């Protein structure tokens, strides 16, 4: 038995996750950009918005177009036929976000405004 397998270790840490029914706002420009990005795959693919450790403020947004995981640990929001998925573990962090799209060469692309964030990094990708 090694140092890391001895008696006295607790079971894996489990901090209860707060699950919230997520509501998000998607601007018209973001809706259009999402439709274009899906490239007519919206029957089989979804947009997953998530939060993970990183960035100057503690958490980073991530957005992925991926095959539908068909996993009930995600909450599903339908926007003009496109499914946006948010994992239950991220629901408290992402509830109330506004998804926008800016069509500019500098600093353009999808952008997220988060009214629940206490602070945001200058680049807009990190919040806490």
């Amino acid at each position: 038995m090694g140092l890391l397998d001895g008696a006295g270790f607790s079971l894996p840490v489990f901090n209860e996750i707060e699950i919230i029914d997520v509501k998000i706002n998607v601007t018209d420009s973001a809706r259009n950009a999402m439709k274009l990005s899906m490239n007519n795959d919206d029957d089989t693919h979804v947009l997953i918005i998530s939060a993970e450790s990183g960035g100057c403020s503690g958490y980073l947004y991530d957005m992925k177009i991926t095959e539908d995981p068909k996993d009930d640990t995600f909450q599903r929001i339908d926007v003009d036929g496109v499914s946006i998925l948010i994992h239950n573990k991220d629901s408290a962090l992402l509830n109330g976000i506004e998804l926008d799209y800016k069509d500019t060469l500098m600093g353009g692309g999808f952008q997220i405004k988060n009214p629940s964030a206490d602070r945001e990094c200058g680049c807009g990708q990190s919040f806490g």
Partner: protein
Amino acid sequence: MTSFSYPDGKYILSESSITVLSGANALLHLQKLITSKVEDSDLYRTHDSLFCHANGRIIDYLKIYNFGEKILITNNNKNGNSIRKLIQTGIPWNEEMTITNGDNGICHYRLIGNIIDTILKQCGINKESIVNNKFTEYGNMILTISSGKNYQILDILIPSDEEDKVLKIFKNNNIKNMEASEWDKIRINLGIVDYFDIENSIPFEVNMEHLVKLDKGCYPGQEIHARIESRGKINKKLVKITTNLPLKKSKYSILRGGKIVIKSSFEQNENNVHLGVIPIKYIEDSIIITKDDIKFEIQQI
């Protein structure tokens, strides 16, 4: 006259919290939360690092032990649960990672003194294998050496149900346990910084700049650290201070402007020793006088 001499051998049970992370990307995940770069770490390497708030101030000091499939972290036991929660909350939805609380499973002993070399010889351990951020296993113990310019500390991690083995080694070598106050005396005299000296400070102001890697990508506090560093706004430094009066942990106004903040103190006859933060403009001065006419003898650490 100083009443301090480097010990032959003294040990203390450290107030450490122990956390074990496992998962293919555990090291990379951890790197997003701390100030230093660890993703390229080799097996059996240790790394010292910091957790910081988004405002750039230190939450905790941690030591990371890389076991390959698992990573062991020691940090201050006051922060054990909050650090584990911080690590857990930001795990990406599509990654498998396990966090285990080892607070009751592993003890952390610290041995300081000239006897370290003798102990290592008795155990047949090549010292080269545990210096310069390396660690080795000895039975179920993990050994590494933390060192400064005038001291060496042997850090020993051992399963709690086997701690009698390490205590037996100490007893056989007549190494005595020390109380927290005696540890304070030793560490302050040697300029060894403890958690309470750096908590809630900007790393650059408490001599922790070597643990801040601004070229490794973002982490909480990075924006503040980068701004301070690029503007050359590092204006404080942690030093060892000697006074002939005992002092409380407090702020003291300097006659020529600025303040000294005493972080740790030990009363030692007429040579009271402290660790404190002073304005960097006084760093080359050997003596600073306060508005209360207290003479502070300054020594860089």
